[in-house]
């Protein structure tokens, strides 16, 4: 007869509210997701829109997957000219082509407060009206320029504006935003004419279009050439090659930049690298903090594996920037570059390399026979060890640029030897104990977890050899 009781078919209980939202979002069909996003985006524009923002953030994985149409707003249109320059962190010192994302809202609120409501409302009520939107953007430039002029003229005004915006980086960002918004039309043309980012190569027609737009800016707003170049660099796969692009334009007579342009682009490269290194540092720091007060911090392995990916990109940037600056950079920029390299080296060493072998071997021992063969290895411990091994292997790909190749190789060797030794001990224990039933299952899981670690550290050949030895100890064959 029908078996209707036994286990409950209910889905596993989600660990927290965010995970619950993400799980619910996954099951949403397109139409429902569209409705929810539309409601949340409308709420986002209200003064109490922070909660809607948090919910949208929780929905982010689903939004990336399903790409529901996003609500166009005047604020979004205002951000378009400088969207390529936005960075998540808050840079210290000069911004050089960087705008902290956190500067958008205070700047926008300042504009809404000081700007002419009629001009803003006209654009907001009909975002398809290009003339009204262009007028609003021009109005933004004149309003913020006036604010900056007043702040420069009166120290108290300057301090009050700085406080209102939430810090020096946000204050400095105003200038960069004004620069980009004032040539919004040309930036739009640039984006349309160039290949999608990241641009790997400029073909002749792209160079023609780039030169035409740069020449146009040179005529109407020569002080904005650097801004246009920052946008171009932000869209390049290898921005350190901007000097080659400019040389090509000059050699073919298409566009002749001023001598100061190389200086600007070199400074932008160093700034970009600083941002990347800051991001790597921030990632390393976030690994020690829980995502929410009632949650444990992420595992060391998870943090190390993610950090190794981010650091790898930063090192690639470092190599390209160094090559460019050795040709065209000044001494201060080269010193900045070396500082960035040192910081990166310290972060990678402290969070990925140093102690990796001991952690991996320690995890193998904790999940291994010294505990008990009657229980399978602890999945959390195994996962952490695997991720530490992944991070170590990833760092091997860029260790030489950070002069860490010896440390990485040493940790890899010690980890491999440690796993091998722990496996031999395990196999001996299996032989002596001849486990049966569930203990046998558990022993098999221990064998496999060591083989997997060996694969990550030393490749599949060695892993298979280790697995065969383990199965042999169990009296089994594949």
């Amino acid at each position: 007869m029908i078996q209707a009781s036994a286990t409950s078919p209910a889905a596993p209980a989600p660990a927290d509210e965010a995970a619950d939202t993400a799980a619910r979002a996954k099951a949403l069909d397109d139409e429902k997701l569209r409705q929810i996003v539309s409601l949340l985006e409308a709420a986002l524009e209200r003064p109490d829109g922070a909660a809607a923002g948090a919910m949208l953030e929780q929905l982010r994985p689903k939004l990336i997957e399903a790409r529901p149409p996003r609500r166009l707003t005047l604020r979004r249109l205002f951000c378009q000219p400088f969207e390529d320059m936005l960075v998540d962190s808050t840079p210290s010192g000069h911004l050089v082509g960087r705008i902290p994302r956190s500067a958008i809202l205070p700047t926008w609120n300042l504009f809404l407060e000081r700007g002419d409501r009629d001009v803003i409302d006209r654009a907001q009520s009909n975002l398809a009206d290009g003339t009204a939107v262009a007028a609003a953007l021009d109005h933004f430039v004149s309003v913020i320029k006036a604010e900056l002029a007043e702040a420069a003229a009166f120290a108290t005004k300057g301090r009050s504006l700085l406080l209102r915006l939430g810090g020096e980086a946000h204050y400095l960002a105003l200038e960069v935003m004004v620069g980009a918004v004032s040539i919004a039309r040309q930036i739009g043309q640039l984006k349309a004419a160039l290949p999608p980012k990241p641009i790997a190569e400029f073909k002749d027609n792209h160079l023609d279009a780039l030169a035409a737009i740069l020449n146009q800016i040179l005529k109407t707003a020569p002080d904005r050439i650097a801004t246009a170049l920052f946008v171009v660099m932000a869209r390049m796969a290898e921005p350190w090659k901007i000097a080659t692009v400019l040389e090509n334009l000059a050699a073919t007579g298409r566009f002749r930049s001023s001598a100061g342009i190389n200086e600007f682009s070199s400074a932008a490269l160093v700034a970009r690298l600083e941002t990347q290194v800051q991001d790597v540092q921030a990632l390393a720091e976030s690994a020690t903090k829980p995502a929410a007060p009632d949650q444990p911090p992420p595992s060391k392995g998870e943090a190390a594996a993610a950090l190794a990916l981010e650091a790898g990109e930063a090192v690639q940037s470092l190599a390209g920037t160094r090559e460019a600056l050795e040709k065209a950079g000044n001494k201060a920029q080269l010193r900045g570059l070396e500082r960035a390299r040192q910081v990166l080296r310290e972060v990678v060493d402290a969070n990925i390399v140093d102690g990796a072998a001991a952690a991996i071997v320690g995890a193998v021992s904790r999940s291994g026979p010294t505990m008990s063969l009657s229980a399978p290895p602890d999945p959390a411990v195994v996962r952490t060890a695997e991720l530490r091994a992944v991070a170590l292997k990833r760092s091997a790909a860029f260790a030489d640029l950070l002069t860490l190749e010896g440390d990485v190789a040493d940790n890899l060797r010690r980890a491999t030897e440690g796993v091998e030794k722990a496996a031999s001990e395990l196999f001996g224990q299996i032989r002596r104990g001849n486990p049966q039933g569930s203990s046998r299952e558990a022993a098999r899981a221990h064998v496999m977890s060591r083989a997997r670690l060996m694969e990550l550290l030393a490749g599949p050949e060695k892993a298979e050899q280790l697995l065969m030895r383990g199965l042999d100890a169990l009296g089994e064959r594949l």
Partner: protein
Amino acid sequence: MADLPVTPLSEKDAPKTFVERGAAVPFTTPALMWARVRQRANIKELLVPGLANTRGIYVFEWAGIPQRFTLTLHDRLLHRAIAAEPSPTPSVIARIANRIALSGAAGADVQVAAERRARQAAELVLLARLTLTMRMIARMNGDGSAMTLSELRTEAGERRAKQLLSEIAGRLKLTPQSFHDRIEGLATVLGEIGLPGMPVKSPARRLLQSLVQITRVLREWADEGKGDAVVEARLVAQVAEETFRLSEQQTAVIDDNAQDIDSLLREWPAGEKMMVAAAERLAWLLDGWERLTNMWLDVADKSASHQSKTLALMSYLLPMVPVRELQAEDAGKWAGFSTILYNQARSSETPPTGLIDFEMMLRLEGHRAREAS
């Protein structure tokens, strides 16, 4: 047997049936990420598209794979397990792959996902059984005897259901045992596919939902001219849409028959055969799409240029429905897709066969972990 490169997209060489096309294998070795397995008489073959940047499909004897490719540990085990299987269909490959994943050979995340998948599969069979029970009671005893899912999970509810089902078995002129066996058989088939209204969606229905989504997203991508793979984006969207339409015909067969459950149980085993055939055809139609949708998800938040490269690769490796598996009225449309595909003379970026690309291996393992989430 010699290794044979064949050109898959010409009329002459394209596979004519699903069995000839082979079943997708979830290898984690990058060079084999698009590989399929098929059985030809006594010989099992590995089909690998795009090797050495060619547009052909290379055919290798299954037994010789370890000599040809450097396999990951997971794939060494998968290769051995599939070798012993006489009929490598998508369902069989999925079952074997989950068993290997459960061993931990592809890492802790894939193992956890495999455990979740196994748990989910058992829950879906149970849910299908409960849903069928409710339907049967409601349909054959009228609204007055209708039961809810939560009621069915109580001891009293279960007793009442047993009594009602026993009456229904009598009305269908079946013994309680054969009635039970039929419900069990049906629930096993439906566990894989699911039924509309079940509180948990089956992997097959979730994949169908992904096909709808990828169709819309890629069509918009192409309409907006986001990258230089507009033709490929449109093609993947069209093939996804058509695959969805053909798949829906099969889910309709399953859903309609499950709705008319008394007739289905009365006309057993013909009813069972029909349901199994529809489920198998659905599995073949969807075979390969899991990896394709994962490929897109990998780049969904990346730049248009990354997306373009992935789309070119996706279009090249689309699971086309073989001609003998199509109705005459659909053949023209699919021939059109093949023509577009053949005209897109792009070289694929399939990884080399020598060393294992570590990051790509992790990415493919990530797909295996994502499938069950």
